[in-house]
């Protein structure tokens, strides 16, 4: 139905958005790529020269890279495990009829709206601080030694904080998916003698599979780039115990002024994120046809 005229108008209306995003993508990306092959340190201006793959070799053989890669995987994996399992259980609970559904729902979603620096600092000081934190008080009250979470188990503590932030997201999406489940199908299964576990395993879980995949993919994209939580709690330490890839590249580029090395790290981070992105895009693309 679209006429020649409306096609031209449509193209005109899309072009600002396309041009801006194209610029946002191509300009910095090509600069990152270019810098990654240079010896370029902001402390030594005018000394830039082409060095081939040297930056990549240094970055990839740095023990900190291996530690950061492991931490990134543990952080993403740990948070996914907690939020997907916890979110499924919470969604199943909240999907039942009970008094005060609206209020409980609001309370469960709330952490998602708390800015990362606030949630990290609140957990760090008000809960995990061994002297004045609530966990410290609780340990004292129980007659136990207070535990210094962020210096003795930094990565685990950050996984805990980030999980608190993302549990609402998983819960909300899984709850939405559960509510679109055909109730009659569940009732029919119950009539046929299917127990609660069977109903969950054979009807609910297959129905939730798609939502769970979406949760995993979207969270992975965000979790690969966790930054503020690490910056305000541990600064990546002690040593590299809680440094993830994002934080390592940040340190190399903006704290050590090593533009070349940081850029090589950036290219590697982009490649890793792309692997996840391809799967996510396929999922969403399929939905577009439906």
């Amino acid at each position, binding site marked *: 139905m679209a006429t020649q005229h409306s096609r031209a108008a*449509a193209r005109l209306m899309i072009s600002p958005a396309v041009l801006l995003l194209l610029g946002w993508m191509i300009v910095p990306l090509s600069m990152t790529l270019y810098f990654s092959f240079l010896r370029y340190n902001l402390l030594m201006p005018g000394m830039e020269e082409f060095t081939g793959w040297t930056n990549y070799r240094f970055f990839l053989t740095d023990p900190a890279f291996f530690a950061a890669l492991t931490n990134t995987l543990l952080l993403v994996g740990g948070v996914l495990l907690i939020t997907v399992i916890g979110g499924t259980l919470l969604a199943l609970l909240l999907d039942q009829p009970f008094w005060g559904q609206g209020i409980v729902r609001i*309370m469960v979603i709330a952490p998602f709206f*708390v800015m990362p620096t606030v949630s990290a600092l609140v957990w760090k000081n008000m809960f995990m601080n061994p002297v*004045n934190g609530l966990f410290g008080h609780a340990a004292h009250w129980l007659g136990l030694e207070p535990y210094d979470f962020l210096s003795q188990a930094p990565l685990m503590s950050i996984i805990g904080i980030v999980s608190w932030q993302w549990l609402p997201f998983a819960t909300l999406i899984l709850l939405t998916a559960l509510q679109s489940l055909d109730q009659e199908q569940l009732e029919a299964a119950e009539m046929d003698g299917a127990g609660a576990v069977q109903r969950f395993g054979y009807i609910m879980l297959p129905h939730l599979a798609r939502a769970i995949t979406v949760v995993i993919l979207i969270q992975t994209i965000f979790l690969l780039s966790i930054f503020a939580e690490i910056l305000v709690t541990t600064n990546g330490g002690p040593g590299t115990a809680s440094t993830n890839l994002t934080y390592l590249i940040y340190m190399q580029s903006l704290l050590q002024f090593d533009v070349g090395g940081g850029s090589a790290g*950036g290219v590697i981070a982009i490649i890793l*994120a792309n692997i996840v992105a391809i799967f996510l895009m396929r999922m969403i*693309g399929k*939905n577009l046809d439906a």
Partner: protein
Amino acid sequence: MARAATTQRKAIVTVAAWIVGIAIFFPILWIVILSFKSEGDAIRTPLEVLRAQWTLESYTTVQERSNYLRHFWNSVVLSVGSTLIGLIIAVPAAWAMAFVPGKRTKDVLMWMLSTKMLPPVGVLVPIYLIFRDLGLLDSRVGLVIVLTLINLPIIIWMLYTYFREIPGEILEAARMDGATLRDEILYVLTPMAVPGIASTLLLNIILAWNEAFWTLNLTAAKAAPLTAFIASYSSPEGLFYAKLSAASTMAIAPILIMGWFSQKQLVRGLTFGAVK
């Protein structure tokens, strides 16, 4: 019999759900309580904290010592500004793709989404250097540009999924009646699209308000929004629990309220329409 069983079951679920809900909400509740206590009381044991005198002093000290309102205003300018500019760019684009779909519309949409998958740290260095050379570091203008660009794909996608649900026949009918493109957008599409645009607006203000990679890396003192201001409490001097709580409470309260209003649209916006 069955009725009694369901009531009993409902009671058990109610207790369980409330316990879990309060546990998850507790950290937020706790900072709200601490924000109304004096610094000396805020580090006492929980029971002593609850019994201590209520006071507003933390709120006034936060403002006096650090000009809190300036950072709050920065957050407002950055989140609302970037969202409005984003909408101005995105509404026509989403409109065109939803109502005049071409062969490559799907590819364009997927490509836009792919820009969102780019890890920010991958372009940190060039953006930092460009900003340094253009004098945009620690400026609100610079951050509005970045926040607009990083949220543009989400804005376009959300609007697209809303616009697609508007029946195209209505537009054709308007066209038959002699409506121009301008009339079409102004009098037919806009009233039908307002709810979708409103929830897109809300969700994006929330996302921009809480954005904590670029705001932390590209600001120092002048243009720092609340995310960056609150990060300065990571290496404080002296007692600060009550002040941190007051600063945090004011930083999250507006977003919590907006978030509760937009919770239904949240799922759709954050999953790019994959879960509705």
